[in-house]
């Protein structure tokens, strides 16, 4: 209770202010540590261990964190990986294939910042190493483009754009990389053809939503690559030897045979040259897209301009198209009665 005078005095002492005096140094606080010593050697109690994580280990650590539960951690991990890939020479101990396997599912990540960071990471990947994995990448891009959430859909377009920039030619000639993305893009645009023209119900006041012009632009870019005229290389005598001696330049040279793969339908088929692509485009999408472009051009504004770009691409790409396929609908039943 502090009944005695001594105790009262002790208590008071706690709250007594140190008196500052002119010409004298300021009193040191209680927890002051004197650092002004000099020594020939310093002994550190906790030494740095020899097997401290080197760059590779740190890379792998962050690589595993890319699948973390918390989205900030995922974003940070992606940022670290991006920085590692942007160095010269880029550090990538796991290889592009493994890295892609890990980060591709993040395309449909719910966090916007993670997706944005992912795009940066993808852009940091070396282009020639992405090209062999196009068929796998396109699966996830399609998943993102058709995602139920609008934000992810928009980001899906970004990824698509990136892929086209990086490996446009191999995209359009991959297995399941021509018809299926086209199907997705047209369904996103709402140009699925058919005679029902139900209004888009979910996008509020605007008829097609804000992403509409962008979607058209990506589609036009995609088609541009698809319809790009291949410059025929003149045949030189070395080609004869090169055909069977040199290693093939494209990743899966005999993939079109489909020997060790499940049977493909029309959608998953490879359309290796321009004529094939034009053919299937004309058959499946030509009419629907043409109608859609016409309607969009009339809208004017941003959408109109995008539609004009698309229209130009179409005219250039499909201008020289003529029906070359040997199997017409009439021919289909030609061999019906015969046993092959």
């Amino acid at each position, binding site marked *: 209770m502090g009944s005695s005078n001594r105790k009262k005095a002790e208590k008071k002492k706690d709250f007594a202010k140190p008196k500052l005096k002119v010409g004298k140094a300021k009193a040191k606080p209680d927890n002051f540590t004197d650092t002004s010593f000099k020594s020939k050697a310093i002994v550190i109690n906790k030494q740095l261990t020899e097997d401290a994580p080197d760059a590779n280990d740190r890379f792998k650590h962050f690589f595993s964190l890319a*699948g973390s539960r918390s989205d900030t951690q995922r974003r940070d991990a992606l940022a670290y990986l991006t920085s590692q890939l942007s160095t010269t020479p880029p550090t990538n101990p796991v290889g592009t294939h493994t890295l892609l*396997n890990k980060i591709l*599912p993040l395309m*449909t990540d719910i966090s916007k910042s993670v997706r944005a960071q992912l795009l940066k990471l993808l852009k940091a990947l070396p282009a020639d190493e992405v090209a062999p994995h196009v068929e*796998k990448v396109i*699966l*996830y891009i*399609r*998943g993102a483009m*058709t*995602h*139920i*959430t*609008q*934000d992810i859909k928009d980001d899906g377009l970004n990824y698509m754009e990136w892929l086209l920039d990086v490996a446009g030619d191999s995209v359009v000639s991959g297995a*399941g990389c021509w018809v*299926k993305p086209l*199907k*997705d893009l047209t*369904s*996103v645009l*709402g140009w*699925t053809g*058919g005679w*029902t023209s*139900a*209004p*888009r*119900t*979910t*996008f*509020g006041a605007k008829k097609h939503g804000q992403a509409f012009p962008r979607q058209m632009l990506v589609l036009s870019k995609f088609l541009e690559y698809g319809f790009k005229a291949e410059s025929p290389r003149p045949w030189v005598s070395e080609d004869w030897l090169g055909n069977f001696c040199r290693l093939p330049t494209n990743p899966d040279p005999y993939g079109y045979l489909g020997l060790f793969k*499940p049977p493909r339908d029309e959608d998953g088929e490879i359309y290796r040259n321009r004529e094939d692509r034009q053919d299937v485009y004309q058959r499946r999408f030509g009419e629907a897209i043409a109608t859609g472009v016409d309607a969009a051009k009339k809208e004017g504004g941003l959408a109109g301009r995008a539609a004009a770009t698309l229209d130009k691409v179409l005219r250039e790409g499909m201008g020289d198209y003529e029906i070359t396929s040997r199997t017409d609908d009439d021919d289909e039943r030609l061999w019906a009665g015969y046993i092959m």
Partner: protein
Amino acid sequence: MGRTALEKTEADLVTLQYKIRRDPQAYEKEFLELWNQYESTRDQFLAAPVTSESNVLISYRELVDLIAHCADRKLDSQPPVALHCNAAATLLLTRALLVYPEHTVGFADGLKETLTKHHAVLESDLREKIVTSLVLLRRKDVVDSGYLLTTLLPILVSTPSKSLRHLLFTKILSDLRNSNTKSINHKLNRTVQNALFTLVTSDRTSSKGLWAVKLTREMWRRQLWTDAKPVAIMKEACLSDNGKVMVGGVRFFLGSDQEREELQDESSDEETPDIKQVKHQIGINKKSKKKKKALDKAVDKVKRAQKKKNAPNPLNFSALHLLHDPQGFSEALFAKHLHGKSRLALESKLQVLQLITRLVGLHQLTLLSLYSWFTKHLTPRQQNVTTFLACLAQATHELVPPDVLEVLIQKIANEFVSEAAAAEVASAGLNAIREICARQPLAMTDTLLQDLVQYIKSKDKGVQMAARGLRSLYREQAAEMLQRKDRGKQATMNLKSGEQRQKKFGEQEVGGIEGLELLAKWKEDERKRKRAEKGLSEGGDDNDEEEEEEEDDGWEVASNESSDSGEWIRVSDSEDEDEPAPKKQKRDSEEPEDEGDAAKELEELSKLATTSILTPADLAKLRELRMEASIDKAMGHKKRKGEQQSRHFDEGLTAEQIEAPARLRKDTKEERIAKAKEGKGERSEHKSTQAIRKSKKDAEGKSTTNQEKARKKNFLMTLGKAKSKQKRSLVDTRNALKNHISRSKAGGRRRNGVAK
């Protein structure tokens, strides 16, 4: 922002599903996007089924669910013609009409492919979802039952996952049941049965056949499959090399019919609501639509129950009767599982033995090697020897050569029945001998029989009774084999009159309608009674007689009168036309009063069936008379004997029946307590019997006794009477007391016990 709010709801798959179901036209685009999303997710999944990221799996699962729910919506919006076509046809028909179905068509195939190829590595939730989605598609008639079952059956057989097997089994079973409820789907049943049959027969060593056995058994139990094909499947299962499959098949034959009956009884035991009570409650309580509906429901239920009760019993043959080529089957079973060096456990061996002997007994098969096989097992030291004995008796029938059985009986007698053997052993042996001899009396020699009958004098009750059983059996079957003193009065008399004689080997009794002479006799009596009532003489004029019959034989049983009822058409008048003449003869012959003629008369009477057509009413009366006669017979004799006679030789024999009299010993205390407690219900709390009875009465909604009412009467209500009693004059009191005395003498106010 309005946009984000919209998107949020859109992102919710459940909401979207709801929206699509509400308005399929407006949300067509959304569905298509979703469909593309599904396809891309599926591609992602198929690209790497094992290593797929969990979120891919989850989104795939959700999409599968949603699209399965939406698939039918797409179909619903089509013209009804397309609804009835299967999915592929729908595609062709409606391609021009609508965009929807062409997308959902590939859905079932996609699911099927995924499931068939990757069921072993799929995540369990996803796997389950795919299975249920397929079942959902089946329920919505997008795919047919055949498609579903041909998908699920191979997976059921091959999957290593227990939970998936369980799921698939229930789904397959429920689908089979559902497609057989309204009408029997013969086509589907045939395909499934064929699949199961090949499953059992293709690889006899594998345990895959167990699923065929399980499915067939379940379908048999529910009476959905009742023909010969499931029996054929089970037959093949019995001949499997795999022990489990074999035992499953054998068990089916031994117990399936009983199981089926039990299930039927269970379903018929369903409680029907008390309509009276419901009506009463409605009269008292507030009237509401809900109550009315409850009444309607109750009435409906009762009606349905009655209809079910009145419905004709479905003709169900037992599995043993539907068996094709029982001789070959039993030979194969015997050669495969018993005869050679088979490594079966005793338990399953016994089951096989039971099945074989049951078949032999039921179909009267000839399987001579079976009897010699028994020889080595008929010793008291053999485990489960009573079952062996029962099986031997089961395998005996009239057409088994007696010399084959004679050896076995001799062996049983030597091994089991001796003074040195324990009482239980001796009685079991005697019982077994009796059961064998009941089926083939010729197998016994008279010296052995006379020896065995001596055991009547045994001190043990069980042995004594078993010996008595044997004696009474032979009194009926072949009394001349017994010693004179053992024959008994009836048998001696019958022997003397020549009425009883032993049947020869293979002799068949002349068939007839059981109890027909009873009916004929009853008819005769009835006629006589009628005539006596009319005051006519016994030998009245024939014409009169006929007229009488036509006029006043109002009894509906009479066949010649039945056309009046309108229900039964009289087919012939033969009775009226033919009978008078023989009747007259009969009456003439009655006069000399001869015993032999009496027998002849009986024969004449039993010609009833050949001279007239029995109506259903006649048959009902016949059944009644037969019952009466059997009761009469049973009353005179001991109860057990009646039981024995009622047991048909076609039925199987169990070890308990061989052991039965050995269990005559006194019960232990626990058994006695259990017996006393039986049927008394659970007495959870400590209560007096009175209280329990009262609460039971309350629960049944019955009223209380007058005494109870008086005791519970409100005190204030009794006050008035008490006061007036005090104010009575002396005369009034005296009169009241007098009345009380006289009343109590007369048995109370109601005059109980006094004739009114």
